[in-house]
């Protein structure tokens, strides 16, 4: 694959860079934009990176994603950076930061949790930052998810 193709610049939109290699599709899943938007979305995986060895990149054309929309990807891609592109130029750049609370993104691992029943409940977790990354605590049953958060995505 030619370099130009991989990093083809977009005119307007959002580039999510420095995603841990292999997580691009999960990032799209968390963002919930695939299938719910007309935007051109492209994901590139295993791009050589000086800092990370390999990384993934996601580009969403003609849509500027707000921090509150993208911060939840910090759960699975804590090193990700968000670049807002206007007229081919990076106009804003920031790092993702995990939100204090996430709703409807992660499924509780406790089969006996009320959020895993037919009751009208949206899964909800508080997010605690700690040494090894983040830890999620179900608001309902208080079960903790501390690793492999990816496996608990809806």
């Amino acid at each position, binding site marked *: 694959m030619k370099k130009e193709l991989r990093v083809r610049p977009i005119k307007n939109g959002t580039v999510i860079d420095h995603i841990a290699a292999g997580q691009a599709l999960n990032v799209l899943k968390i963002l919930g934009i695939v299938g719910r938007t007309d935007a051109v979305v492209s994901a590139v995986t295993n791009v050589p990176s000086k800092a990370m060895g390999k990384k993934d990149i996601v580009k969403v054309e003609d849509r500027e994603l707000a921090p509150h929309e993208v911060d939840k990807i910090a759960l699975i891609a804590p090193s990700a950076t968000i670049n807002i592109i206007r007229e081919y130029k990076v106009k804003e750049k920031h790092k993702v930061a995990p939100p204090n609370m996430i709703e409807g993104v992660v499924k509780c691992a406790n089969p006996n949790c*009320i959020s895993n029943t037919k*009751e*009208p409940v949206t899964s909800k977790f508080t997010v605690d930052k700690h040494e090894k990354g983040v830890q999620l605590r*179900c608001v309902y049953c208080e079960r*903790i998810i501390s690793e492999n958060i990816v496996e608990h995505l809806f």
Partner: protein
Amino acid sequence: MFTKKHIISMRDFSKAEIDVILKKAEELEPFAKGKKSNLLAGKILALLFYEPSTRTRLSFETAMKRLGGETINMISPEASSASKGETLADTIRVVSEYADVVVLRHSKEGSARMAADVSSAPIINAGDGAGHHPTQTLLDLYTIKRESHLENLSIALIGDLKYGRTVHSLAYALSLYGAKISLVSPEQLKMPDEIKSDLRKRGVDVSETTKLEDVISHVDVLYVTRIQKERFPDPSEYQKVAGTYRISAPLLKDAKDDMIIMHPLPRVDEIDADVDATKHARYFQQAFYGIPVRMAVLSLVLEAR
């Protein structure tokens, strides 16, 4: 000042809020013993027990009636709309319009939190599956306060520390008071590491042993819990383990004079009957304290509205 609308999980409470509840319980204790009160006259408590727990239900009912309030009961979930497929959320929406306060016991963990989200009346969690049972923890704290002391406490938690959420919740609450906690359990039923490290992070001095004899002489409280047969694939293993943690009167000869023994009840054979007559036994007193504590909780959530 007490502003909590619902009583769902001990994690929701600060030390100051717990102290308000315990103080209120002390104030109301004479009424638990039969002194007349009209404090909650005209108020209705709905008891929604989707799982049988006769003792807890009777205790809430007693607390409400001793304060002059009334209770309404869902007799059995099979006979109610739950069996027709109505969601718990809908039942709560309806019942919270009938009653001034709702006590809920349900098999699903987190059900009380969800109920609180949709209820127009205060929800008191009376046990949600393997989850929380905050009034049990509050009555445990109250017992310790009345019969021993909460500050600078040295307590041994004995039995099933792996699955027993009662002890997890109590240990968490005691961390607010800076307790020294000795964990005594068989190897298979040790307290999970994440709970231990959480307690240590909160400044609790946590130690662990498999031997009851290691702790008896220096603790203020022995908190004994049941070891359930189901936890052991091999029944002979259960017999061996259960026998090791049985409290008997002779075992207490080296205990401090004012050491007290607690148990959330019902007991099976963790505590010999010969312990009942010793100066250490407090488990029946502890059961009684469920009444003033539930009175306190009921009156506080009804005032807080």
